[in-house]
């Protein structure tokens, strides 16, 4: 069941797209708040989309540790086990 990093990245990028109003190019270093300008409402909707896509929970405690795209991919892979 474990997916490779590339696959997880691609699926997350697809989920970012509707929230990426300025069409910022996504790299591991892309930050959600500073670069993509996600506000708290967007974060909630985006996290819900990720959770549904991968059938996982990303608690607020875990979200606090995730600032950029690369960290999110790592967290999703870890949560998937």
């Amino acid at each position, binding site marked *: 069941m474990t997916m490779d990093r590339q696959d997880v990245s691609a699926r997350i990028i697809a989920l970012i797209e509707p929230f990426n109003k300025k069409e910022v190019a996504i790299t591991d270093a892309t930050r959600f708040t500073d670069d993509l300008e996600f*506000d*708290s*409402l967007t974060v*909630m909707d985006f996290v*819900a989309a990720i*959770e*549904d896509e991968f*059938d*996982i*929970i990303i*608690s*607020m*405690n*875990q979200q606090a540790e995730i600032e950029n795209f690369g960290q999110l991919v790592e967290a999703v892979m870890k949560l998937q086990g």
Partner: protein
Amino acid sequence: MTDMISENQTAEHTDLFSKFDPLIKMRTDLLSTGVTDPFGLVMERVISPTVAMCNGRETILLGTYNYMGMTFDPDVIAAGKQALDDFGSGTTGSRVLNGTYSPHKAVEQALCDFYDMKHAMVFSTGYQANLGIISTIAGKGDYIVLDIDSHASIWDGCKMGDAEVVPFKHNDIEAMEKRLRRIPEGAGKLVVLEGVYSMLGDIAPLKEMIAVAKKYGAMVLVDEAHSMGFIGPNGRGVAEEQGVLDDVDFVIGTFSKSVGTVGGFCVSNHPKFEVMRLVCRPYVFTASLPPSVVATACTSIRKLMDAGEKRAHLWENSKTLHKGLTDAGFQLGTTEPQSAIISVIMPDLERGAAMWEALLHEGLYVNLARPPATPANMTLLRCSLCAEHSAEQVQQIIGMFTRAGEAVNILG
């Protein structure tokens, strides 16, 4: 160490207040338009639960949460005065040391009787009740599943504890169920809901949500701060109204709304509930409420048990105001009146503040609510009705809103 002191230098430092600069700017910009500070109102004299003197003007109060108008009830006031005479002005101590007087036990018994539950624990404020109960019962490895629009005291209770915090979209049963389903097997689960959400005045589908919570073995805490005394056949809240109070493990409430004083509480039938008095830090490490406060609360709660006529009149007020404001062309937080809160949605903060001020000049006080306290970054004029508002006052209020709305160009 001594070298550093002898050099007597002032190191470069970051001003810890610089994080507040955006808020300071927002406030300065708002006040520079000449509008009265919406967060600096002073009531010079309070005449009744529905009228006060503000800036020398007689003002109808429509933003006080004083739903049942108990603040000037003669029996309530007499009980407070008697307790002042009998027990003094304060307890100067924690409930678990020298701060439990007989009126504290009496008000807890009144709560047990009011809710028909076995245990009641009184805190010094409603904020502390949520803070204390949530942070204490949900610990490391446990999961708290809560509505994203929860009150600050619920969020702070989550933050103070060590549990994993998992929010879901407001009132979304499916979103809640998905999160409960994904929680690892064996983990403790607490679902936190509110009966009435105070910003828009909408209620939760507790019947469905609590059924889902129980299906996944979660304990359920419901904050009924804005429904006590008013909603439900006995005024026990939205859970009672929807017939699911028996499935609620913990009800959180406050004395600072319908009860008409200050304080908070939790009622429960949990067989081990009394241990909370020893382990709940916001209960232990603070002074208990003054005896006059708990005596007024006790009298008020017992009177609220038999307040069917006042409840009926408050519903009439809520329906009349909702219809009047809708007909006048205002956009409201709910399409139907669901509680004693009617929330009027403003186009932005500037016009919201202008409207608030125009209403004050008309002689009407409402709450201006702005982000981040509001959902979806809305600016709201929040109206909370009182059972003591007369039908004439409600008509006056509708007229004031209409004139103010036209004056600041919110109504077309």
